[in-house]
């Protein structure tokens, strides 16, 4: 990804919009008892497009914004989302996105990973109440919802960041004739 000040602003606004959309809208919805969680999906998309460092930094920033907006313990969401963004970026750096199903599958997988890590951190910080097994249902349903959310979100994020994407830049450059004298 070619990072310019304009792209930094776009990514910043995207993360801010994602946090506000999550807190003020998506968290109020319930599908079979589970809440859609868009932030891991957004961070995975940014990691897939920008690489491991971009994914990690965006995950950290998104987590910090979320914890600040909800007055929760700082650092928990940052840790979880930066891990998800970094892993998505590492996948991008080592493998080709040969199928349109790979981004949603990765988003779902890393949301599952993030949910378990988040739960582990909460248990380490101390839970004063019994924990219901319904939490597992919530985690599984959130994972499925992440797959569904990633289907439109990845192309949307890609479109928003297209000036920074190297593959898209090459695609838009006019082709030169490959043989001397050809027109």
């Amino acid at each position, binding site marked *: 990804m070619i990072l310019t000040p304009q792209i930094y602003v776009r990514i910043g606004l995207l993360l*801010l919009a994602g*946090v*506000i*959309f*999550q*807190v*003020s*809208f*998506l*968290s*109020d*919805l*319930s599908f079979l008892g589970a*809440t*859609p*969680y868009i*932030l891991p999906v957004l961070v995975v998309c940014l990691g897939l497009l920008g690489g*491991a*460092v971009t994914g*990690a*930094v965006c995950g*950290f920033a998104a*987590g*910090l*914004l*979320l*914890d*600040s*907006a*909800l*007055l*929760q*313990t*700082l*650092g*928990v969401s*940052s*840790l979880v989302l*930066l891990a998800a963004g*970094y892993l998505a970026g590492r996948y991008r750096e080592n493998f080709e996105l040969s199928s349109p199903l790979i981004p949603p599958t990765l988003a779902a997988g890393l949301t599952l990973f993030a*949910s378990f890590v*988040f*739960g582990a*951190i*909460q248990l380490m*910080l101390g*839970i*004063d*109440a*019994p*924990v*219901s*097994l*319904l*939490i597992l249902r*919530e985690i599984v349903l959130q994972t499925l919802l992440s797959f569904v959310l990633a289907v439109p979100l990845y192309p949307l994020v890609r479109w928003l960041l297209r000036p920074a994407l190297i593959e898209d830049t090459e695609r838009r450059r006019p082709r030169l004739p490959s043989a001397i004298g050809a027109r």
Partner: protein
Amino acid sequence: MYRKQVRRRRAVLVLLVVVSLVLLSTHFSEGSGGPLHGVQRVVATVLGPLEEGADRALKPVRDMFDWFGETFDARGENEELRDEVADLRERVAKAESAVGENKELRDLVQLGPAGGSQGREAVAARVIGRSPTVWYSTVTIDRGSSSGVDVNDPVITGDGLAGRITDTTSGTAEVTLITDHRSAVSAEVLPNGPSGVIKPEVGDPGELLLDFIEEDTEVDEGQMVVTSGWRAGHLTSLFPAGLEIGKVTEATVDEQETYQRVHVRPFVDLREMEIVQVLTEPGGADGQSRAATGDTG
């Protein structure tokens, strides 16, 4: 060149992880007046109007989703509600008789009236934000310290107790709901039932547990659970007495446990509530000592 990229990537990752861990441990261990909490409140203050604007703008879309869900649930709920209305009519008749007798007895011993809100002022607020995970059961409301809202103020809806205020900015406040793992409310079973502590079951927002009820105490399905509002010397409960919490759905006894597991269904639909009331202290909380134990939430 490649090695440089790998070193840079690892350095950024390690730096971000270390910063996250430092933030986590510092924020967790410092008091609510610490510098990190202060910075967090500033950011929350800035984001508050954005959350409120987004909440209002997206309300029609949210209502459309809710309409679909409620239509599917309505049929089953209708039958249940008819039975509940019949039961409540009977209770209201008995309660009215008890109110009259209560007044008579109070007049006899010259006691003043006992209000459920104990002289508190109610500030109406709108829910503008909600935590996306089940590990935190909190909402953000659009009233803060500038409206007289203070930490530990109880939060109710028309159906009953919802939670308490745990943090404030000038324009917003965080409400920790009774389904949050940090919440514990002193409660009693009506009428003339035992007292215990209401705790949540993390991951199940439709279920609370009334703890510390001895196994030989009789608790029946359908009995109402309200806040007990205790007082011990200078210390008083965070919640006034008589705030409705929920209804007993089941009481089970485990052979190896000293206490029963009394399951309570909360009256308030915490996922759907949009408007709440904060019971604020008249003139603020200065000079009033509140318990830090027994009622942690």
